[in-house]
């Protein structure tokens, strides 16, 4: 039949021509295009920082980039800083993983069961807007000044965002896809597993990302607030440096916190982009 050949021709015409291998220089140029604005921003910050230092503003507290960076470099030579970072990251990961499990289970139950939603839907949103460090005094009474108290604060900080991300995802499952899924006979667990949960993924990932940000800042607040005897953490290091008037070290630790935040955020952003690319949610012109 002539029509099927016409159809095949039309298919070939409509498909985007496949992109060949990128020419060798392209990767380097792309890397540079991504890198230079960041490098420029860092340079600008350093220049402004140096200018403020030169102006002599609060010069006993406010140290310039030179002393701070050399302090950071010095600390990096010693195991102490790494052990501190390691401990804090360990708390962050444990707290986040527990928040992930708790938040996901609560989110799923809330999204699925109307009475549960009526009961705790508003509470989750309220918790989300609340700085979780307000739980610290309560946590100290409950657990004592130890790591459980800190984890409690972190989990309360992160879980509501994760739960809300999942609830939003379930709520915004496109009705048309639901109709399609139901006509093909998906129901119950299979409907959730094959349709609602995958459709929720973008909102869920956004919730995970926000949950991480909340976990990280809750952890810092909790570490500053809750001193564990014999245990160093980045928060406690900040507290100790302030007491010792070692402001170069305070600034160095802040830089460490910033870098960790940026690295983790980049990982989430990469995961998010990969997912959106697979689903065709990225503008191909903007993504290239």
């Amino acid at each position, binding site marked *: 039949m002539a029509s099927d050949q016409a159809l095949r021709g039309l298919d070939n015409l409509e498909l985007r021509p496949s992109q060949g291998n990128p020419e060798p220089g392209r990767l380097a140029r792309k890397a540079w295009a991504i890198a230079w604005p960041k490098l420029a921003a860092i340079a600008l910050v350093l220049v402004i920082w140096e200018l403020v230092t030169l102006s002599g503003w609060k010069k006993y507290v406010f140290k310039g980039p030179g002393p701070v960076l050399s302090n950071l470099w010095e600390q990096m030579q010693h195991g102490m800083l790494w052990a501190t970072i390691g401990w804090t990251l360990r708390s962050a990961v444990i707290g986040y993983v527990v928040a992930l499990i708790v938040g996901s289970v609560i989110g799923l139950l809330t999204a699925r069961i109307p009475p549960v939603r009526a009961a705790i839907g508003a509470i989750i949103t309220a918790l989300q807007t609340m700085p979780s460090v307000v739980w610290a005094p309560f946590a100290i009474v409950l657990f004592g000044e130890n790591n459980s108290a800190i984890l409690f604060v972190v989990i309360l900080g992160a879980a509501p965002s994760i739960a809300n991300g999942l609830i939003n995802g379930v709520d915004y499952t496109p009705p048309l896809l639901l109709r399609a899924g139901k006509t*093909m006979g998906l129901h119950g667990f299979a409907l959730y597993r094959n349709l609602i949960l995958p459709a929720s993924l973008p909102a869920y990932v956004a919730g995970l990302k926000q949950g991480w940000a909340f976990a990280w800042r809750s952890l810092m607040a909790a570490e500053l607030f809750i001193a564990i005897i014999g245990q160093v953490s980045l928060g406690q290091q900040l507290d100790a440096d302030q007491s010792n008037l070692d402001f170069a070290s305070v600034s160095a630790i802040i830089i460490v916190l910033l870098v960790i935040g940026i690295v983790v955020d980049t990982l989430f952003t990469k995961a998010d982009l990969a997912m959106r690319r697979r689903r065709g949610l990225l503008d191909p012109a903007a993504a290239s």
Partner: protein
Amino acid sequence: MRVSDEQVTPPAAVGPGASAPSRADAVRLTDVSKAYRTGRAELLALDQVSLTVHDGEFVCIIGASGCGKSTLLNLVAGLDQPTSGQVDTTGRKVGLMFQEPALFPWLTAGRNVELALQARGVPRAGRRAQVAELLDAVRLAGFADKRPHELSGGMRQRVALARALAQNADVLLMDEPFGALDAMTRDLLHDELERICTERTLTVLFVTHNVREAARLGDRVILLSSRPGRVIDEYTLPRAGHRRIDSPEVSEVAARLTDRLREEMGRHGI
């Protein structure tokens, strides 16, 4: 009973044996009404609609906006319940296709089709071959690994058709499936749909806004009035093999359908 009477049926288009009475009923609607509550007002979407689709018949439903076409398909698909009257699909399996392909964007074309097989309990071992066969039937053999966003609108709609076929449906309900496609693609897909329906002896209930499309594809065309939706006319067309959309025969039927629809729309313009 609402049957076409000789006056409104274009004589040129009626052939002997156009609808073989011996065929079994596939879908039967008896005095079906459907009302929706919107706030205080009650909207009657369908009013006492009775129609029968025979096995292997291609029935087009045409009407202006607000004739309750989508409501009708939802009722037949079992996604909604009528306010009164009976919908009987006589134990046949029903598959539904929409104007949008409604493919799952996180799955490849092949996996989208496979999910329909999985949902009806086809064991994993047999699925692969069936997916290949179904994609081949809609002439997308090489595209199993593409994701929906990598395909054109016409190709996506064919994946959706393959997915509907994967549900092993005897009755295909189609809600303006080609409405969002360009004329050239639509024309080719008419040929494809016709071929597939003949090969698999499918019964089709096809809703459209497009009179030419109805005249091109239908064995029978049913006209619905708007607000409330009622059956106002029925045209039986001869199944004279392959009809071209630009043939004089299709044009003539389309012109008649248009006239009748305008008359109906005019009622609401006063």
